[in-house]
């Protein structure tokens, strides 16, 4: 790079132009989303006044954001999504870390065979397991009622007589939304790959000091693995937050819906109120964007592991 030549400068200028152009086309739809969310209900159907007006609301109606729950129980959807995504993320990272530790550090009969089983199932499409899992959940309350008839497995529960929380198990239960996602073959695989790269010396030293397996895992392995745990946590959260098909099939009651399912139902109510729907959508994107901004470096590092997958 000692003597930059004209050709190089020209190509750099072209690259810049291309990058700015592409960057703009990435951002424009999102800008339009925000602009629409601030418009008047009728203004979105007004084509006069050129293209720029589409991005410039006549008046910024921030109040739209206060009205997202007028037609549907939007905040209930939001609370459901937060609750489900939070539990899925912590639960999945915990079970995957524990299993990965066993696969990476412990000797036990059948270990390699079992690990191969985990690997082999990673390529199975979700469509294969979804139908039996749906049937299992649909049948679960009846089965459990035969085992423990004293518990009303199929009943819908409420907290304080006002807040419905669905069933204990089966369709329309938080168990259905969370349970099947509390483990993951891929997460186990990814963390196992990370754990085997950790130096054994620290763990051996802890063992000599008389630490049990559990303490070594908690106080040596996990603290050294925070980046990998963060990576898995971020991907799990984003996946759980956006998950659509599974919540769609296991929930019937409106109060059990998560945000994606609730939003999709939103558009069917009356004629679609686009400003409100876009406001609701913008609010849904906020957690993903925040996690993306704060967790970028973990996302990129996760790619290297992702590239080994397959």
């Amino acid at each position, binding site marked *: 790079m000692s003597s930059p030549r004209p050709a190089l400068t020209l*190509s*750099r200028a072209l690259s810049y132009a*291309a*990058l700015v152009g*592409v960057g703009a*086309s*990435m*951002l424009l*739809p*999102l800008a*339009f*989303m925000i602009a*629409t969310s601030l418009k008047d209900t009728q203004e*979105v159907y007004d*084509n006069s006044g*050129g*293209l720029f007006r589409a991005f410039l609301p006549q008046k910024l109606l921030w109040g739209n954001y206060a009205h997202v729950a007028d037609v549907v129980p939007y905040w209930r959807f939001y609370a459901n999504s937060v609750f489900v995504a939070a539990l899925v993320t912590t639960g999945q990272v915990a079970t995957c870390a*524990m*299993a990965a*530790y*066993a696969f990476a550090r*412990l000797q036990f009969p059948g270990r390699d065979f079992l690990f191969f089983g*985990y690997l082999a199932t990673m*390529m*199975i*499409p979700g*469509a*294969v*397991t*979804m*139908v039996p*899992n*749906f*049937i*299992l959940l649909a049948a679960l309350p009846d089965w459990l009622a035969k085992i423990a008839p004293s518990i009303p497995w199929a009943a819908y529960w409420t907290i304080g007589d006002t807040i419905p929380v669905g069933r204990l198990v089966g369709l329309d239960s938080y168990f259905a939304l969370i*349970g099947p996602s509390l*483990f*993951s073959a891929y997460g186990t695989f990814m963390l196992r790959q990370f754990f085997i790269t950790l130096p054994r010396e620290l763990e051996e030293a802890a063992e000599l000091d008389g630490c049990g*397996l559990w303490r070594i895992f908690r106080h040596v392995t996990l603290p050294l693995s925070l980046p990998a745990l963060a990576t898995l946590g971020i991907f799990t959260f984003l996946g759980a*937050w956006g998950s*659509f*098909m599974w919540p*769609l099939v296991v929930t019937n009651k409106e109060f059990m819906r998560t*945000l*994606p*399912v609730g*939003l*999709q139902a939103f*558009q069917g109510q009356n004629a679609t109120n686009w400003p409100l729907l876009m406001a*609701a*959508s*913008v609010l*849904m994107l906020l957690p*993903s964007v925040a996690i*993306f901004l704060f967790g970028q470096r973990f996302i*990129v590092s996760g*790619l290297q592991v*992702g*590239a080994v997958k*397959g």
Partner: protein
Amino acid sequence: MKKWSQLLRALPFLAPNLAGFLVFTLGAVVVSFYLSLTEWDLLTPPRFVGLANYASLLGWHRAETGWEPLDPEFWQACYNTLFMMLGIPPTMLGSFLLACALNQKLAGERIFRLVFFLPSIVAGVAVMLLWKWMFNADYGLINRALWTIFGVQGPTWLTSVAWAKPALMLMGFWTAVGGFNMMLYLAALQNVPKELYEAAEIDGAGRWSVLWHITWPMVTPTTFFILTMSIIGGFQSGFDAAYVMTGGGPARSTTTISYFIYNHAYELLNMGYAAAAAWVLFAVVFVFTLLNWRNARGRMQ
């Protein structure tokens, strides 16, 4: 005895994950295969039908006008899925070119990377609704832009049999072009030996010539990996967007294989038929997974 004590030591760590694995994956796979050999509407007991579901899915029969599939809807879903997978090569090419542009160590590279990556992070129902609105024939941003800038009356997009698939592909391009694939290309580009470029420069090769004769061949393993992963993903995708934006229509033109399975399982309650379709999907995906593994093994050696 030692084996048992080893197992007892490992079991507390394994148990939670293993329980989920055994029930929701392994158990489900076995049940799913059994289901694919039955006819079951959930209301009456399942009836064993052997390979009949597979025969009706894949079979063809002789009609007056020639050979016709037993289930045209399944083949239409396959066609739709393959059609939308035509978006994969342009998206990959876009990712590659963007990565090349970013790899020049320009000022502001980090910002560009962030902006390009944003769509793949926000992808989901919210963005599908946004695109549904942008594709609106009369008031959508896209047709407004086509009219204002080019004076062209745009198509009706999501409600047009001809344009619904391209519309979903366009959204897919926007979502994916700057995402993970671009990052993979970027990582691959950083591993291309500098000496190759220097040698080409001495030979007086032009920028495009270097791009196509050195850079592109050097990232072939990455291209192969992205291609097979995209194909594997492509066969399984399309449900969310179609459900939210088109309902699989118009005239089933956006009903992909995954939508077909959903439709049979949860709307028509043909559990066995849906399971059989899922296994056909698995068989196709399996071929590409094997290809990918062979490639990965070749790379390691």
